[in-house]
């Protein structure tokens, strides 16, 4: 999708996103390209979401919109693969599908969505306010113990340890490239330093007023959309079109459930259990060792266990 690279003024108005596609490699223009892409992605989703036809929707239109979404996803995947890759979690889809089942009981009759773990994890660095539960799940299944020294950071799987440095440098990259970062990236960047920076998170959320949609789009992108999207694409063509609504309604709800970016308090509160849990895990390997250092945490253990169970839905 490399365009000519002609620079355009960033314009929040719809028409400002028109025109030739900016090369994604241009520095400041990358923002408007990304924004354009997000907007189009959003629009495409809305078209598939909101169609409540009495008659069958046009297959041609559905196919073209699906192709658009796929292309954007591919692009994101490729961009994500430039960042340090998370090792694919050994348990790909189940935890998330569990989450989805919680959100929408109607979803349960479908097969577990073939979430592509590589899709999901490769996009993680771009957005750290992901479904924390999924991160927990990744941690659960990662066997290699790792000590996380950056406290309240969102917990990358321990397997990431060797590339942790490049991860934080990647976050810095993001910060550089996007002068008006989405709150997601802001959170990622900010939380790397200090959890107590709920303030900047808030300000970043409120600052680009015209961008809430794009942020939602971003988080939509981060959700396991690829997997669900695959399902949707097929069910969109199958005779039972009502599945379409269920699936997309599914995603919608779950995003609002798990997207801490839509509210500042959400961001702060969601970060807390994550960090505590992450501490829990890092200390778990040491449980066989003298109890004394862990004493203060034991009381919270059951509480955290409970929280984890709720989030995982097991």
């Amino acid at each position, binding site marked *: *999708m*490399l*365009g*000519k690279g002609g620079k355009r003024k960033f314009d929040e108005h*719809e*028409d400002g*996103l*028109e*025109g*030739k*596609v900016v090369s994604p490699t241009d520095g400041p223009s990358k923002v408007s390209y990304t924004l*354009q*892409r997000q*907007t*189009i992605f959003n*629009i495409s989703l809305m*078209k598939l979401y909101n169609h409540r*036809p*009495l*008659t*069958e929707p*046009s*297959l*041609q*239109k559905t*196919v*073209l919109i*699906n*192709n*658009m979404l*796929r*292309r*954007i996803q591919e692009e994101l995947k490729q961009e994500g693969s430039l960042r340090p890759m998370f090792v694919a979690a050994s348990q790909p889809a189940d935890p998330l599908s569990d989450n989805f089942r919680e959100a929408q009981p109607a979803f349960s009759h479908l097969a577990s969505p073939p979430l592509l773990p590589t899709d999901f994890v490769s996009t993680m660095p771009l957005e750290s306010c992901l479904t924390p539960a999924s991160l927990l799940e990744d941690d659960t299944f990662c066997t290699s113990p790792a000590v996380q020294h950056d406290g309240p950071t969102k917990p990358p799987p321990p397997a990431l340890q060797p590339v942790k440095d490049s991860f934080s440098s990647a976050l810095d990259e993001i910060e550089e490239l996007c002068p008006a970062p989405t709150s997601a990236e802001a959170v990622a960047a900010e939380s790397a330093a200090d959890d107590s920076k709920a303030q900047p998170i808030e300000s970043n959320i409120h600052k680009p007023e015209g961008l809430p949609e794009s942020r939602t789009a971003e988080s939509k992108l981060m959700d396991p959309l690829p997997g669900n999207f*695959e399902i949707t*694409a*097929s069910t969109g*063509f*199958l*005779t*039972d*079109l*009502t599945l379409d609504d269920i699936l997309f309604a599914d995603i919608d709800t779950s995003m609002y459930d798990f997207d801490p970016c839509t509210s500042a308090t959400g961001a702060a509160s969601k970060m807390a259990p994550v960090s505590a849990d992450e501490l829990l895990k890092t200390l778990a390997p040491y449980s066989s060792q003298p109890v004394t250092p862990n004493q203060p945490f034991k009381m919270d253990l059951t509480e955290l266990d409970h929280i984890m169970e709720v989030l995982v839905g097991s």
Partner: protein
Amino acid sequence: FLGAGGGNDIQWCFSQVKGAVDDDVAEADIISTVEFNHSGELLATGDKGGRVVIFQQEQENKTQSHSRGEYNVYSTFQSHEPEFDYLKSLEIEEKINKIRWLPQKNAAQFLLSTNDKTIKLWKISERDKRPEGYNLKEEDGRYRDPTTVTTLRVPVFRPMDLMVEASPRRIFANAHTYHINSISINSDYETYLSADDLRINLWHLEITDRSFNIVDIKPANMEELTEVITAAEFHPNSCSTFVYSSSKGTIRLCDMRASALCDRHSKLFEEPEDPSNRSFFSEIISSISDVKFSHSGRYMMTRDYLSVKIWDLNMENRPVETYQVHEYLRSKLCSLYENDCIFDKFECCWNGSDRQVEFLSLCTSDLSSIVMTGSYNNFFRMFDRNTKRDITLEASRENNKPRTVLKPRKVCASGKRKKDEISVDSLDFNKKILHTAWHPKENIIAVATTNNLYIFQDKMN
């Protein structure tokens, strides 16, 4: 654009407009297809309400030699009714997607009309005489008391007011899972094809209980579906050749003699993408909405969102001509995507056949080849392939007096707007001309706006 004057330049005049005057458009009145019959005497329209209206041209009045006959309503009938698919819990629209006329074989006229699922063969016949003078029946149909009959007489046919009757002679149903977008009658006049999003079927006009599937692009796994069929047409002369276009901007020419299932094309027409014009919407705007063979069959024309392309059947790698319909929309594609206008399916048509002779001829300068297509704001465009000139005209009730030459229109893409020009931002995207038709022999055109049918003719001197 086309200036005034010039020996061969057509000067288009308003002739007639059919349909409701008020701005409030009833959904059922939205015109969905327009088609002249082979002689041009009849003009059929189909609408979203499933009705077919046929207009007939008056016989030319010898005293009024400065205008051709007017078109008046000849027959109106309900072709398709809304149906309900109980399996999918969805309605099947009664909207008429296409009408195709059969060549006339006897006194009656035949046409095929189709909605999303069912094709019907309609017979339109005239009745202008009726038998009178029955012995046992009164004129009003009541039976006479036989005892009052004293003499016998032979009933005779007497003229009556013309009555045009339409009756469905064949119903071709249950052959399409997806929505039918095209029907095309073969040059053998015995078979025809119908195309939906994923399949093309071949029918015999006499046989309704079966059809042959000749193209199937449905993937085994629907998740892999990325391309659909958008239009299909039989070659005008070669009864084993047909083409179909796709949503990815390709046209495939198939020969039915090669195999029963024509999944492998004989030719693939595709123009490589212009990298400087690449955008998120490249694929969508490349989707072909209509394909039409020229009358000779040597060329074919395709319409995609922004342009009309002429292809030489002997050259697959690029079109021989490309005409920009409304290039100024290229910078508005995102908005047009959002409001769904980017999915509008514009049709295109060639000028009448008597004026095109494409086999080797010494007099090529006399032969006109013009293509026409619609745009927004009730504009329509014509491209003269010989002079390379183009013109934009408007179908509107304002300023349209019969025999007044239509004023060319111009859209100002950017910068200072000249007087009489219209800026892109003030175009009305709800006023779209998707369907146009050209009389097969004369310079008479039918242009459908949302719910009105305009007829224009060239100025006869």
